[in-house]
């Protein structure tokens, strides 16, 4: 779904206009065993304005913040983002202008900071900027995309108003006579995912809940995999049961320690609650919400020379403390 196809979608209302194009994209790409390491800049440069992008993780766990940070720095425009639950990063994507539309089941900050005022100011002005599906509905869009089918039946959302607003078709099972809804598949142009470890070929190992990242990796036409740590391929072959992102899905691998910061990475570090709290409270207290986020973006996204300088703004103590609280032996 590149910019052009996306327009077709708007016209037809079908997010799966190009089932065949998405299939062909995978057929044609070089899926082989090769060194896929790229810089963060090179990887994000693969994204075109108007693309549909799935974001890994869920709420503020294992969010690929580093890739989003670079997307915003590269001034990408008109993107549609898919995420199971949107958190602070949704505010940043809206205010920066990168996100034209959010497709998600839930959109706010952390639970303790109430409803996102940024989401409200965008969605109340233009409801089309926030397309809501149930969490299973969104999950099945990616699942169907991953399975290589254009749609999949479900019992969720029947009889609700989401059935209508999401424009879901009814379906009667010819074997059982059951009434179901058909969720159309999505094949994002690019999936951005952060794993605890990966090898240079793109074999990724996610520890803790994989959220929808495994589905997204297969559904997407291209995958950018950022990882806390690149490990030797022999380590991957020693632990094949832990590999949940196979290399042939992946197009770029970027080693990016603390790549979810200030969000968390299971087994590696907890969220920087203090910093998130400052941000959340600051947003609540500020008169000019948009201005507040613009200031935050300027300070944390645009001014730092690179991602390490961005991390430096949180400080060593924050990194050490969140690591002390979050690390567990397994990953």
């Amino acid at each position, binding site marked *: 779904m590149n910019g052009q196809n996306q327009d077709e979608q708007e016209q037809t209302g079908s997010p799966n206009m190009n089932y065949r194009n998405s299939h062909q994209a995978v057929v044609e790409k070089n899926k082989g065993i090769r060194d896929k390491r790229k810089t963060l800049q090179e990887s994000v440069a693969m994204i075109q304005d108007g693309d549909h992008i799935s974001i890994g993780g*869920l*709420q*503020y*766990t294992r969010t690929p913040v580093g890739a989003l940070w670079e997307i915003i720095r590269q001034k990408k425009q008109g993107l549609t983002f898919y995420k*199971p*639950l949107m958190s602070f990063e949704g505010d940043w994507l809206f205010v920066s202008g990168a996100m034209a539309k959010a497709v*998600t*089941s*839930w*959109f*706010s900050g*952390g*639970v*303790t900071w109430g*409803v*996102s005022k940024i*989401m*409200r100011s965008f*969605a*109340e002005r233009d*409801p089309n900027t*926030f397309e*809501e*599906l*149930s*969490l*299973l*509905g969104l*999950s*099945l869009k*990616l*699942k169907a995309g991953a399975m290589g089918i254009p749609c999949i039946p*479900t*019992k*969720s*959302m*029947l*009889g*609700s*108003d*989401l059935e209508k607003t999401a424009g879901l078709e009814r379906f009667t099972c010819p074997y059982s006579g*059951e*009434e*179901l809804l058909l969720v159309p598949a999505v094949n994002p142009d690019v999936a951005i995912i952060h794993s605890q470890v990966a090898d240079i070929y793109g074999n990724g190992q996610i*520890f*803790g*809940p*994989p*959220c*929808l*990242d*495994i*589905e997204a990796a297969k559904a997407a036409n291209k995958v950018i995999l950022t990882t806390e740590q690149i490990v030797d391929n022999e380590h991957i072959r020693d632990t094949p049961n832990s590999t949940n992102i196979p290399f042939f899905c992946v197009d770029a691998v970027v080693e990016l320690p603390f790549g979810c910061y200030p969000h*968390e990475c*299971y*087994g590696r570090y*907890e*969220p920087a*609650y203090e910093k998130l709290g400052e941000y959340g409270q600051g947003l609540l207290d500020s008169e000019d919400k948009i201005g507040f986020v613009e200031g935050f973006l300027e300070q944390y996204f645009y001014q730092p020379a690179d991602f390490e300088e961005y991390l430096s703004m949180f400080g060593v103590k924050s990194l050490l403390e969140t690591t002390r609280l979050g690390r*567990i032996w397994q990953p």
Partner: protein
Amino acid sequence: MSTYTPAELCVIMGSRSLKDGQIVFAGAGLPLLSAIHAQKMHAPGLAILFEVGGVAPRIESLPRSTNEARSVRRSVATPATVDMMLYLQRGFVDVGFLGGAQIDRHGNINSSCVGPLENPKVRLPGSGGANDIASSANRVFIISYHEKRRFVDKVDFITSPGFIDGGQAREEAGLLGGGVEKVITNLGILEFDPQTRSMTLVALHPGIAQEEVHEKTGFELPVSDNLEETLAPSEEELDVLRGLDQERRYLKKGDF
């Protein structure tokens, strides 16, 4: 007689509603407290699931969100979100707890918008997994603070279906789950008439006057012929509960 906050009362009523061996979807806040409380009081074999991918985690400190790593620590498994939600569709989830900005006489819940979605007065965060729980959990318990603006005649938007228009509407829609079995508020307990599927007051909490319930309900609320009074929380129930939230993050006084 012991004193307790509305939140404490609701959590304990929620806890009492849970049975040993049940599989429970419980979000952060009061539902999670009810589930943990039940485990400690009478349901050691009850298991809690979180959408993010937590199965029967051991919860030492109450998480800010049930979607963070802290909440899934010591889980027996960490499935993908899609698998967690599909457990609902396959019938594995015995109880789901829900709440919402608006709840109507047929148990439909709105967590999407105040006013029409095309032109909302207030755009709310949305369903999350609530619609899926309402659609497919074997039974649903609603915990809510009782006030007129919440208990409305008809929700502006059905995010999570209860009995829709009442009667057989839910079955006709093809839904799998049993729907809302019980609404627990700080004033009493409400259930649904087997025919009309309309919310009915079946029990009042100690010291609550029926009038207050009607005042704080935005629609004509039928009352059960054998209206009961609930048993006040015991000292033991309160002690166990207060041990779970010592910072009073969720058990604070007043509204919740």
